[in-house]
């Protein structure tokens, strides 16, 4: 094993796991002093083309409280046909099917390279995929048309046996019955009335058919794998029908008086969608896809009234507690989200409007169920169209890149406990010996439900070291964690993916260097960022920033090297060197700063941040900047105002936006039309290069980023200017003497200033620490408990 960097990378590729620490401090006290908690980013369904699933079922530890799965870390007695669980040390017999087992004839799950392995469960009925479209009809004609086309297109992408349903809403909510011939039927609901699931099912007539079907089910589970409902029909059956139906969709016919918003019953529509699936396909993977072109304006879950003169809430209103409908609406959607999650259904929101659409209130629908949240200006944009299309993209096996109704179970060896998880999941409230009392993120459980998953969905999972300070380091022991993900594959199979990882213990006092070297600052930054964002959902922005700062300072104190009282001597080792910078950009990011962002935008950004994998998350925290020039090949440059030069073309990727920025000179050249002159073909190529690269990024990214092509002085250049480190501002422009970049008109501190202060604080605080250590301990524990925010 060469370097930790390689080790980390290798682990990530194999297991989809990145720990903040790759050598673990052996005691609770030491662990807390590490500041950055022991945690990992887990991508449960990381694509592993090289990993064919095995067609048998996993072998479980027989201890009822453990039930860990046989893995390469287990000790196996081949002669006795026994294996010892590495979590509870229970000795287990191999099942009869393993009779032929021997050192040379090992099952896959015992081979070290199969630390991650996927089982296919053959038992049980196969559940179809279910797609329930919930479509807003209060749209402009163009928008509606575009949306209709997208939806029609999507039908062709669905597997033929998947079930689809359609709910449309405007002033009323219509649930379309798809099975009928001739007359198209729909059930209509008032958009202003909140209905219980029972009422909805009664009104849809779903309660009756359940009776006759049930007895038939056990008899022929395979002939009749699922209860078919009038509202959810296999695509292949009603393809044409639904296409026509979509084609005939009209804009909401109710007149909208001048000065009013159309009445949009989104709250009820979602409620009905949830109720419908709840009644027909509980615990079956399903995707509710909500397309909305504006904020809910009536009924439960309304976000804003229909008077146009009253604008939708802003951060300002929220701070002033002036958002009338927010609390109620949020509560409504949370209730729905929880119900959907409990049934394994995920909710996507595709909101396309120029103004806000209430994502702030509705975010829990996606966040708790693992759905997608997509925000665009119009359904008639490529941003939406391609994003939507990409949802149905397929993997190398021709299966959708999505999985449903997953539960993630985490098992830890004794020295560890589970503090919580942050990601698109809800707690299943499974208590156990390995569940910590301190919660980080969604805690208090060892299992989570993730209703919608894709290969990039990533959770942050936080642990607590519980072994006591004076306890000896387990001999040769390694701490182990097993992640077991049950899910419904898009091929409708039930599968279990098991990842078992182990890390060495180290005594923090004697082996701090090891621990330090095994620090994964990228993972740590993202994990800390997730914690910060998680807190930001419920706390005031400045508090979160202060907390982040304090953590950063403490980390620097712990791992910085300096001479007393000499900030200039402050240094961080390589494995920590980038961390402060990440934190600097994180502080400026839209995840923590709401200035200049609407509540909806913030919600959307945070949503994506909480589910993307490490690389994407880092891009979100610290955008990538490439520079193109005649001076050489494209190169990444500092995200700094100094990188903005007249003769460069910059390509910035912030995950949400791709900005191509032409420097002043380049822009002038372009205006002059040099690129069209044959003799300046190289200029043409130069102009083209970032476009091609951007295209490449666009191809791979989900959701589609906003693509911005701008130039020096262009209005859209603000996207770039707001991101770069303001090393040059109007304040210090002349102090720098030399004009190397573009000054940024901001009062924000630059990275340099930030670092300077950090160094100072790092040294200073160290002094005090000894004196107040005992008190600080208390404070720390208080701090910890504050993290625990009930799910």
């Amino acid at each position: 094993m060469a370097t930790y960097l390689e080790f980390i990378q290798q682990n990530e590729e194999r297991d989809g796991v990145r720990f903040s620490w790759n050598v673990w401090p052996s005691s609770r006290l030491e662990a807390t002093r590490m500041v950055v908690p022991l945690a990992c980013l887990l991508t449960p369904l990381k694509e592993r083309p090289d990993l064919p699933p095995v067609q048998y079922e996993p072998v479980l530890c027989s201890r009822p409280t453990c039930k860990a799965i046989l893995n390469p870390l287990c000790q196996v007695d081949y002669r006795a046909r026994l294996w010892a669980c590495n979590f509870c040390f229970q000795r287990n017999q191999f099942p009869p099917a393993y009779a032929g087992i021997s050192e040379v004839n090992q099952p896959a799950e015992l081979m070290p390279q199969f630390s991650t392995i996927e089982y296919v469960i053959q038992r049980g009925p196969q559940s179809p995929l279910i797609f329930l479209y919930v479509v807003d009809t209060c749209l402009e004609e163009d928008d509606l048309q575009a949306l209709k086309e997208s939806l029609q297109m999507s039908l062709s992408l669905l597997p033929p046996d998947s079930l689809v349903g359609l709910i449309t809403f405007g002033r009323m909510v219509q649930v379309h019955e798809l099975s009928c011939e001739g007359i198209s039927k729909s059930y209509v609901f008032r958009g202003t009335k909140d209905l219980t699931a029972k009422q909805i099912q009664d009104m849809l007539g779903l309660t009756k058919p359940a009776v006759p079907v049930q007895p038939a089910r056990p008899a022929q589970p395979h002939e009749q794998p699922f209860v078919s409902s009038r509202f959810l029909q296999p695509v292949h059956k009603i393809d044409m029908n639904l296409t026509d139906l979509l084609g005939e969709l009209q804009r909401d016919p109710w007149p909208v008086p001048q000065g009013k918003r159309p009445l949009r019953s989104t709250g009820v529509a979602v409620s009905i969608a949830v109720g419908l699936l709840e009644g027909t396909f509980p615990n079956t993977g399903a995707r509710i896809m909500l397309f909305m072109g504006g904020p809910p304006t009536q009924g439960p879950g309304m976000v804003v009234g229909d008077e146009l003169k009253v604008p939708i809430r802003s951060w300002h209103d929220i701070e002033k507690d002036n958002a009338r409908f927010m609390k109620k609406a949020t509560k409504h959607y949370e209730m729905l989200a929880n119900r959907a999650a409990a049934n394994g259904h995920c909710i996507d929101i595709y909101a396309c409007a120029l103004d806000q659409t209430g994502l702030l209130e509705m975010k829990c629908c996606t966040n708790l169920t693992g759905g997608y949240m997509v925000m665009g200006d119009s359904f008639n944009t490529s941003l939406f169209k391609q994003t939507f299309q990409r949802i149905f993209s397929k993997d190398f096996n021709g299966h959708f890149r999505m999985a449903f109704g997953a539960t993630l179970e985490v098992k830890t060896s004794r020295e560890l406990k589970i503090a919580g998880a942050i990601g698109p999941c809800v707690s299943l409230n499974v208590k156990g010996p390995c569940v910590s009392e301190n919660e980080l993120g969604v805690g208090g459980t060892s299992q989570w439900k993730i209703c919608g998953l894709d290969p990039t969905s990533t959770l942050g999972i936080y642990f607590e070291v519980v072994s006591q300070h004076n306890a000896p380091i387990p001999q040769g022991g390694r701490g182990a964690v097993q992640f077991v993900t049950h899910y419904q594959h898009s091929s409708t199979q039930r599968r279990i993916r098991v990842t078992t990882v182990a890390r060495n213990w180290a005594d923090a006092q004697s082996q701090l260097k090891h621990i330090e070297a095994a620090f994964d600052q990228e993972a740590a930054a993202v994990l800390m960022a997730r914690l910060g964002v998680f807190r930001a959902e419920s706390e005031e922005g400045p508090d979160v920033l202060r907390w982040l700062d304090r953590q950063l300072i403490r980390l620097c104190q712990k791992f910085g090297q300096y001479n007393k009282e000499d900030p200039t001597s402050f240094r961080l080792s390589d494995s920590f060197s980038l961390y402060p910078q990440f934190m600097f950009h994180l502080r400026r990011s839209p995840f923590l700063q709401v200035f200049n962002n609407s509540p909806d935008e913030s919600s959307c950004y945070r949503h994506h941040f909480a589910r993307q994998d490490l690389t994407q998350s880092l891009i979100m925290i610290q955008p990538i900047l490439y520079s193109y020039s005649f001076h050489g090949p494209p190169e990444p440059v500092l995200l700094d105002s100094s990188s903005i030069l007249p003769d460069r073309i910059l390509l910035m990727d912030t995950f949400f936006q791709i900005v191509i920025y032409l420097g002043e000179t380049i822009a002038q050249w372009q205006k002059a039309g040099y690129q069209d002159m044959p003799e300046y073909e190289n200029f043409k190529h130069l102009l083209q290069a970032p476009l091609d690269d951007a295209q490449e990024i666009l191809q791979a990214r989900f959701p589609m980023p906003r693509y911005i092509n701008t130039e020096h002085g262009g209005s859209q250049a603000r996207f770039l200017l707001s991101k770069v480190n303001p090393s040059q501002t109007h304040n210090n422009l002349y102090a720098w003497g030399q004009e190397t970049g573009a000054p940024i008109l901001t009062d924000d501190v630059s990275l340099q200033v930030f670092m300077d202060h950090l160094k100072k604080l790092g040294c200073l605080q160290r002094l005090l620490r000894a004196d107040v250590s005992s008190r600080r301990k208390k404070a720390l524990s208080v701090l910890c408990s504050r993290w625990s925010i009930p799910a």
Partner: protein
Amino acid sequence: MNVNQSAPPVPPFGQPQPVYPGYHQSSYGGQPGSTAAPTPYGAYNGPVPGYQQTPPPGMSRAPPSSGAPPASTAQAPGGQAAYGQFGQGDVQNGPSSTVQMQRLPGSQPFGSAPLVPVVSQPAVLQPYGPPPTSAQVTAQLAGMHISGAVAPVPPTSGLGYGPPTSLASASGSFPNSGLYGSYPQGQAQGHPGAQPPQRSVLPQASSFTPSASGGPRMPSMTGPLLPGQSFGGPPVSQPNHISSPPPQALTPGTQMSGPPGPPPPMHSSQQPGYQLQQNGSFGPARGPQPNYGSPYPGTATFGSQPGPPQPLPPKRLDPDAIPSPQLNELPPQQKTRHRIDPDAIPSPIQVIEDDRNNRGSEPFITGVRGQVPPLVTTNFLVKDQGNASPRYIRCTSYNIPCTSDMAKQAQVPLAAVIKPLARLPPEEASPYVVDHGESGPLRCNRCKAYMCPFMQFIEGGRRFQCCFCSCINDVPPQYFQHLDHTGKRVDAYDRPELSLGSYEFLATVDYCKNNKFPSPPAFIFMIDVSYNAIRSGLVRLLCEELKSLLDFLPREGGAEESAVRVGFVTYNKVLHFYNVKSSLAQPQMMVVSDVGDMFVPLLDGFLVNVNESRTVITSLLDQIPEMFADTRETETVFAPVIQAGMEALKAAECAGKLFLFHTSLPIAEAPGKLKNRDDRKLINTDKEKTLFQPQTGAYQTLAKECVAQGCCVDLFLFPNQYVDVATLSVVPQLTGGSVYKYACFQVENDQERFLSDLRRDVQKVVGFDAVMRVRTSTGIRAVDFFGAFYMSNTTDVELAGLDGDKTVTVEFKHDDRLNEESGALLQCALLYTSCAGQRRLRIHNLALNCCTQLADLYRNCETDTLINYMAKFAYRGVLNSPVKTVRDTLITQCAQILACYRKNCASPSSAGQLILPECMKLLPVYLNCVLKSDVLQPGAEVTTDDRAYVRLLVTSMDVAETNVFFYPRLLPLTKSPIENTTEPSAVRASEERLSNGDIYLLENGLNLFLWVGASVQQGVVQSLFGVSSFSQITSGLSVLPVLDNLLSKKVRGLIDGLRAQRSRYMKLIVVKQEDKLEMLFKHFLVEDKSLSGGASYVDFLCHMHKEIRQLLS
């Protein structure tokens, strides 16, 4: 009548009876034809025949006449003189003497004085008809002296009987006698009663004198006067009748039973009187005697006093029968005492016929104030010359007492029955539409009355004085016109509003809701598709019919296509709306299951123009039956359905009509859910009223909303069991809609009826979102309103919808003194939206006379209208009071009216005389029909729903409808030669009028029966039913086979003609004599005692007489 009293008399009767029976029987049985018949006749006809055939009877009768000395004497003098008077139209009733006088004269003319008198009674009634002005029918029932008389009575009867024999002979001589047996004949011939009416000459007063002087009464019958005149007429008729005596004879026997029933009480008390009466009326007694027995018991029915007299065994009747003969010869008195001859009491048929003959030929010109129009049963043309046609407004009296004291004294309700959108015969022009441009119709500034012919222009035309409130208003410049020398505007005849009684104004935007001109109305068809509806085939039938029916939506004037838009909803436990927008390839169904909180799921495409969306609609109607063919849903909702329709109209911002086709009690969980609360045990208890009240207030609230939106609801019910019509009909009732009920609907049997009703209902012209206000000139005020509408205040009648069949009855009360000179004015203004969406005002004006003499009031009354009012009043009363109370109230009021007349207008005469005002001589018989109606006296087979339904129907009936509804028309089909194409003249609704050799048609506006006598000629059976014998006729048959022969064509033509006259299709039921269905049929023979205990006409008359006497004393 001497209904009075006493049981004692009874016994005597009883005795006689035995005798009688023998008697009768012999006569009857033995010789049904001539002999037997005669006897009864005798009593009856005796006189009659005498009448008509003066000579023979004359002799024999003479005695009777004498018997009734007073009368006769009086008459003698008065004789023709009286006549003369009558002719003049005086109201002579006042002086009883005069009356008698008149009669006498009548009798004299007759030649056979004695007979005459008898005859006269009937005659009186009718004959007077013509001069009707004064006409007063005084039915003098010789008040038997109760106690005193009693004792003697028996003997009399005996005597009478004796005579009968003789009579018989007499009768023998007379064809009449034979007739007797057979009522029909009887009528024609002898039944003086019947004939006289025809004579109709002097209808002034008919007096029955049942009094002790029995005999006298006969004279009193006034008939005499008539005789002269009548003679001419009646005889003619008689002949016809005569033709078929034999069979008749038989019939009488059977029929007899019915009539005899007359109130036992009567007998008891006034046996003598009775007989007398009977003479006239006895008819009944004759054959039936045995039957009598049974009927009698029934008599008890009188609302209040069943008790006393009844004891009499039915058999007595015999005497009656006998009496007639006796009467003739013997002491007529006796006869009178025994019984009342049904033919001697006022006959509705006769009155109707007379009116037809006298007033049917000339147009009724409305120019004269306070003119009583012809009866509703008369075909006449109306020329509007300043007052509204009687087709629009009919009043109970056209002469209003000047003071409230007078009005109170008379107890005659002052009411107008208004049918603002009445359909007119093609010969009459519909009201002119006046457009006053932007300024709108010209109105009085103070009372807001509209310009009308009674407004007085003054100051050279610069101002006008309001005829209602006397306020002086300026004439706007654009309306100015000079006056001619009479003070009339020069342009009076150019302007409908100055010269006509009825006209329309175009309303300006000020008259519109929300100050916006209305959009055209919409029709929404809401179809129950629950299991019952599907199974009965209703849905399929309806959908099929709608396809073509939609082409006949009401349109205005010459419009090419109807402006009415249509929408469709089906429902069971949930509602299905349909989007039938023309641009769709297929209709779309939208299901609303949230019935608890109904709303309309779509706007665009729900209400569409039929022509534009035809293909989609057709496709929808094709698919509806298919879609629900397998439904198992049996529960339905109701209130949400109406709510949905109303909300749809609200959303579309238009008025309209909902057509609901509903099958069952709405028990599904929803607002307006009902439970089965039918409980027959409640009948005749204080809680009975709850059966008529709605179960829940929810429907009232809903109705209010509907009215506010101009949403009229028409309900078609197809129940298989109790559906709680009382509750379901609340909304239709309050929104001016109609309810149709087809119990146990089956396509095969009820298709025609339903479709015909549906077609008519859909096609009829309707006004929407209407407000009606009745303004009156100072002194009287509209205080009460009856009909299908809603009132949110005390003056404005709000009608979500109003069609040409709906009638509003308005009651007036005095609030000041009226002036004889200026009279009283009514102006009924109806603001409505036409079916093309035009906002209009329809104005009807009517001027009435005022009087200071009660006699004037009684001379200008209209009994039909009165009954209309009283029925509605009573039918509303059952909502709040026990039915018994309501009945008693009716009887009391009627008695008071008649007593007042008797006291103040009729000539002094013995208290035993029943004297009826000419105009009200049918009041007792009609009132009895009201009292016997299903609502007020339900039979065992009448369901709670039926009662509620009937109650509802009557509430908005017009005068013609109530008239025939309460007194059904019974038409003999085979009496007149087949070639005779005119409608046969009706016979009285009594079993004794049926002959078993004939076929009759009975209709009451809702039901249509074809009664086939058991011994009808085979040829007739063959040509009508296409089967060879009576026994092969299917009982309950509802369609006559189409056969190519004269009779079949004629009958079918007649049936079609009758149906065309009525607003609802009458399903035909063929009833065979002696068949079990006959019970049903008999229910409509309203002059007979009913199974449910309703009194026979005769009994009731006696009872009424007793009441009056009590009041007078």
